């Protein structure tokens, strides 16, 4: 079977190459989709996000925190405010947020900081914890170092040219998909120093006692603030993350569309190759059948050949895409979690075999149904 792949080396190589390119593309698209939807995947089933009903950029009063905390079934509340920090030049923008350290670390156990860093953060009003990825991006940043940031939203604190933060710790995470390029600092310092929207927060993250009550509690929260100047929209964290991504577009649909079009084209290319190959070997298949190879064996031989072509190209393509994404993210600022999840590698492997089976199906059926006498009559 493998010897047959060497029969028309150029044709086989070109077909394998086209499958290879398709699977490299598939791998990258999966990585991009994963990067966009990473937040959805890491979302806790027992966490809700509460934001302003109109838009997430509309702030909520901080008093909502205690009102929500008093609703039965709510275990913990932590608020977050978007800062939009820039370090030195506009290209150095990164996600930065004002939070209450104690509540934040309690709410997000996947964000891991050392006890010493936590102690320092609670002690220092200008303290900030920085993701490992962000620290690697700015090699001059050190623990204890002062980082001057500007914010296009909040301007500067009174009598200061910049917002001054002291790095008190680095956070890691035990979830691969959690973003390690973020910057968290204290809300009390932020609220005191800003000139506008004092006493307001961006949104709240709620943890409920029982995940299966999350939807009911979300409805209760929205009812609590109904008909107020700042009505809320509470939703599961996963749905919130998904709707956030959908502001860019339906990434899943885009990826599925592109991958489907590519695979359909490749299916035609691979199918044509196998079909030509079988057609050229009609007499040989007749001879194999004459020798006693059954129709089923011939069917399996042709399918094995098409699967081998597809598997070589597909697995090599997936391997290269994986190696490139695993070797270092070329666009960490844009998509911090650019990696191919294991389930997509498995899906890709299954697609490679499926492509082989589909592209070989018609030629294999033709070979199976081939009548020996007819096949042998074709020569001479």
């Amino acid at each position: 079977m493998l010897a047959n792949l060497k029969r028309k080396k150029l044709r086989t190589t070109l077909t394998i190459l086209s499958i290879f390119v398709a699977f490299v593309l598939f791998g990258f698209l999966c990585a991009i989709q994963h990067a966009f939807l990473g937040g959805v995947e890491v979302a806790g089933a027992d966490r809700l996000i509460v934001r302003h009903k109109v838009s997430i950029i509309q702030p909520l009063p901080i008093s909502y925190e205690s009102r929500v905390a008093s609703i039965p079934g709510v275990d913990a509340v932590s608020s977050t405010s978007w800062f939009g920090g820039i370090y030195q030049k506009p290209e150095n923008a990164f996600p930065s947020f004002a939070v209450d350290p104690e509540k934040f670390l309690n709410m997000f156990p996947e964000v891991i900081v050392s006890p010493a860093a936590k102690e320092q953060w609670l002690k220092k009003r200008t303290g900030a914890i920085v993701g490992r990825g962000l620290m690697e991006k700015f090699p001059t940043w050190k623990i204890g170092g002062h980082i001057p940031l500007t914010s296009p939203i909040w301007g500067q604190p009174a009598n200061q040219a910049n917002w001054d933060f002291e790095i008190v710790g680095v956070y890691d995470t035990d979830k691969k998909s959690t973003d390690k390029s973020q910057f968290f600092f204290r809300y009390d310092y932020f609220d005191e120093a800003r000139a506008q929207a004092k006493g307001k927060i961006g949104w709240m993250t709620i943890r409920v006692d029982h995940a299966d009550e999350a939807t009911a509690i979300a409805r209760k929260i929205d009812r609590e603030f109904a008909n107020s100047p700042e009505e809320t929209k509470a939703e599961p964290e996963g749905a919130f993350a998904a709707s956030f991504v959908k502001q860019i577009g339906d990434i899943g649909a885009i990826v599925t569309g592109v991958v489907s079009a590519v695979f359909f084209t490749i299916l035609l290319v691979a199918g044509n190759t196998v079909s030509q190959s079988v057609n050229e070997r009609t007499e040989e298949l007749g001879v194999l059948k004459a020798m006693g190879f059954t129709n089923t064996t011939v069917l399996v031989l042709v399918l094995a050949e098409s699967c081998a072509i597809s598997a070589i190209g597909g697995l090599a393509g997936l391997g290269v895409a994986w190696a490139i994404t695993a070797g270092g993210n070329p666009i960490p600022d844009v998509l911090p979690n650019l990696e191919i999840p294991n389930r997509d590698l498995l899906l890709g492997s299954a697609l490679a075999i499926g492509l082989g089976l589909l592209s070989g199906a018609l030629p294999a059926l033709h070979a199976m149904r081939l009548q020996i006498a007819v096949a042998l009559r074709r020569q001479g």
Partner: protein
Amino acid sequence: MSAEKRALVMIENVTRTFHRGAEDIHVLADLDLEIQEGEFLALMGPSGSGKSTLLNLIGGLDRPTGGRVIIGEHRIDRLNDRALAAWRARHVGFIFQFYNLLPVLTAEKNVELPLLLSPLSQAARRKHVQLALEVVGLSHRTRHYPRTLSGGEQQRVGIARAIVTDPTLLHCDEPTGDLDRKSGDEILSLLQALNQDYGKTIIMVTHDPHASARASRTVHLDKGRLSAEAPD
């Protein structure tokens, strides 16, 4: 030929009709033929006489429209596809006019092909292959690909492939039709040796009287009927 030998092939009242559109083409009509075990039979006749069709029926490559085809103890016209394939693998060796070797395999791998259907181990298969290639005088060219062999050598590989399973019957379709006279003579001598020294029953379709002269009996077909039999 020994009178004690039993009939290996019995063709009884066989007809074969092909359908081309609305037209029925009767290639064989009520044909009866017996071939003894150990016989070397030449089937001759003009193009379209039905000799290849008859050969295909005897080799289990085709089924008759009517009548019975009995080979040894098997009524092969009644076997299903799978059983017929197994029967061919065990009982028939095929030799073709154009050799039909797989160009991507070496001589020994080509010869080994029919053994892949047997339960033999790789070592046992290798022994059988070496023996078959020795019988045809090609043990020195085992690693050669078909394109590096002459026509006569390719046909020898084809014969080695046909005998490697030690079949009951050798089915030869114009085995010298693509060879020059010298190579053709060598192949015919080899077939004769297989018949006389190894007791193989051979059925050979040929147009060539020179080839049929090497057979122990010649049968002529014309328009699907036996027209005459040359004496032994």
